[in-house]
């Protein structure tokens, strides 16, 4: 058991940090420090391409597909340095972290050739079409239909909470391809081009005034017959495999962004005197401890090579960070006091900490609510009997 990195790994860290800091001080200085998903989206698409051109886009992917075949430790280091340098989140994170790995795991050679180079080059932006108005936590209740018609899939239905659909090029869709099928059976996983007459995107305005989610309507939307990943009716397995990619190295980068948020709260508390309040001090200490424990939890999770074992750290990570960050938002407001409740921006845009407070209410909902997470932990981690289900 060890925490330290090798000299070679530290060299890699210096190289990555140096390159990232140079970009953020130069050509891309205008996007440094952005914390929302939507701000300056066009510039950030250029940043995606810039990363791709310099080989820093998806370093964990195999070399033949535009990656660096980077080791786990290198990926950890890059994720940390990326966030430390104040580089904004990746507008194509769905493509890099979900679509790409799914294609690597389930896609045909032809599909890999078709999609992976574009994702790696930052030119193919993906979004995710899972949730529906009546299929959120219960994903197996998907109703969006797909049927074959003259060598093409035709899709009708509606998806919701489609993050960044309005700036994406492609969407992957889980749709019911077998008439009358129920639950996880009869679903198919399709890759669809967004820019077509059968797809309409409507932004959903959120409590913080921003609109990163969308409703996505499919009305006779089409894609070629070979656009499916896996087999017809095998969409559930692909979708579940994809969800398992959602945890991993990117958690370390996420934590570094949390680090920046906590540091901003600490600075605010020192500036306005809140840091003298013993109760605020306790909460700041708890936040700091929680953040550190996330880091070491992630390192444990990443160091575990036996993935056949149910890994407690991995199962509990989502609810851990989401709850931690929600509390952080509340701490931020308590530190700021009433100053946190006003903005000079007439467009209802908020600075980092009030925005964190508002946005973090979503953290404990998306990607599986805290309640669903507790079910997963109890059932998969502790072997508790499943909740009886009504309709199946």
């Amino acid at each position, binding site marked *: *058991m*060890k*925490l*330290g*990195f090798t000299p070679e*790994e530290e060299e890699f860290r210096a190289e990555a940090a140096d390159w990232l800091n140079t970009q953020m001080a130069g050509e891309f200085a205008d996007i440094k420090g952005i914390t929302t998903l939507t701000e300056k989206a066009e510039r950030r698409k250029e940043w995606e391409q810039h990363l791709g051109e310099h080989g820093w886009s998806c370093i964990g992917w195999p070399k033949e597909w535009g990656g660096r075949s980077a080791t786990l*430790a290198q990926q*950890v280091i890059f994720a940390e340095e990326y966030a430390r340098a104040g580089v904004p989140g990746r507008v194509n994170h769905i493509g890099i972290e979900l679509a790409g790995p799914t294609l690597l795991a389930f896609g045909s050679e032809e599909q890999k050739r078709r999609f992976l180079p574009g994702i790696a080059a930052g030119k193919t932006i993906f979004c995710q079409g899972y949730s529906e108005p009546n299929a959120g936590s219960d994903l197996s209740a998907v109703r969006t239909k797909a049927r074959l018609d003259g060598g093409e899939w035709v899709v009708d239905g509606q998806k919701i909470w489609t993050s960044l659909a309005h700036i994406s090029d492609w969407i992957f869709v889980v749709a019911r391809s077998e008439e009358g099928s129920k639950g996880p059976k009869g679903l198919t996983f399709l890759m669809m081009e967004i820019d077509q007459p059968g797809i309409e995107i409507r932004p959903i305005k959120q409590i913080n005034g921003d609109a990163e989610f969308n409703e996505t309507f499919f009305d006779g939307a089409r894609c070629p017959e070979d656009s499916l990943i896996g087999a017809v009716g095998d969409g559930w397995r692909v979708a579940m495999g994809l969800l398992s990619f959602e945890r991993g190295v990117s958690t370390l980068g996420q934590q570094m962004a949390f680090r920046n948020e906590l540091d901003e709260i*600490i600075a605010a*508390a*020192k500036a306005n005197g809140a*840091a003298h309040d*013993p109760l605020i*001090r*306790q909460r*700041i*200490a*708890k936040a*700091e*401890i*929680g953040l*550190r*424990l996330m880091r*070491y*939890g992630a*390192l*444990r999770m*990443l*160091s*575990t*090579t036996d993935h056949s074992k149910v890994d*407690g*750290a991995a*199962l*509990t990570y989502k*609810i*851990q960070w989401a709850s931690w960050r929600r509390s952080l938002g509340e701490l931020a407001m308590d530190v700021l006091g009433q100053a946190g409740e006003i903005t000079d921006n007439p467009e209802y845009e908020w600075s980092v900490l009030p925005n964190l407070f508002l946005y973090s209410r979503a953290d404990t909902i998306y990607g599986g609510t805290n*309640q669903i*997470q*507790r*079910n997963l*932990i*109890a*059932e998969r*981690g*502790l*072997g*508790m*009997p*499943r*909740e*009886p289900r009504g309709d199946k």
Partner: protein
Amino acid sequence: MDFVFTEEQQMIAETAQGFFGENATSDRTRAAMAGDGVDRQLHRDFCEELGLGGVIVPEELGGVGLGYVEMAIVAEAAGYNVAAMPLLGINIAAAMIAAGGTDAQKSDLLPAILAGEKIAAAVGNDTVSHDGNSISGRLEFVPHGNVADVFILAHPDQVWVVHAGAPGLSIITHTTMDQTRPLATLVLDGVAGEPLADTQAAITASQPAAWITLAAEALGGAQACLDRTVRYANERVQFGRPIGSFQAYKHRLADMMIEIEQARSAVYWAACANDENSDDPQLALHAAKAFCADTFFKCAADMIQLHGGIGFTWEHDAHLFFKRARSIQTLLKDGNWHREQVAKQILGEAA
């Protein structure tokens, strides 16, 4: 970066778990509770047969010569079974003597403590007065003070060895809520202490030994609370279903697991950081002590609640964990104090 047990560490874990599982049984713990709080057979077997008394003591001093990770592994296994033995005293006293003792103290005391022939208790206090090495005053809440043969008494000016039979020393035995680790009061009236050679080295060595032991013990205890409650949740049927199938129940089990996973990260971060002297070893100690003690208390409290009436009885073991957890929360500084140390450090006020 490889933040998982090595094969050797895994082996030590299995050995320690097997040993405490087999020997630190409820019956034996309860027998010790009815006496002076120590299962002497357990203590001797642990030291002699298992030979894990001096995990962090260098081999040339009769120890095992391993690190805090291994020490934590052992303490976690002891905590899992609320073992009634003076492990805390062994770990702290041995660390202090090894780091700061004179050659004579090392050769006289360490073998006896590591062999389980002498019970050691360590206590820190700046309220006693001393005239050179003659000490007077009162030391309260000394873990295993009622049974110790030798005390390591830490004062900012000097650390002393004091023997239980020393003239001027009287020991007041208390009935302690946690009967698996009784607390005593020492009253000193001009007691002659034998000074350690290096005060600072001894005090520095005492901190990771003490706080990692307690944090790891708490982690093990919390895990035991969860495991036992999970078993009960599968066996106990109400309304025609195992109670573990009800969301209101399973969500509380999930919450226990979420806390425990973090506690596990805390213990092994603190252990590793102190072994490697990297990644904020001091911060890690405070984080681990505060977080793990609270986690243990929450899990032990939930264990009682989730067992219903049976969990409140003397017959059930839940109260052993609950009382041990409560005691760890205050022992060697409470959570608020440890978090305040974290706050000072991250607010840039550290001394």
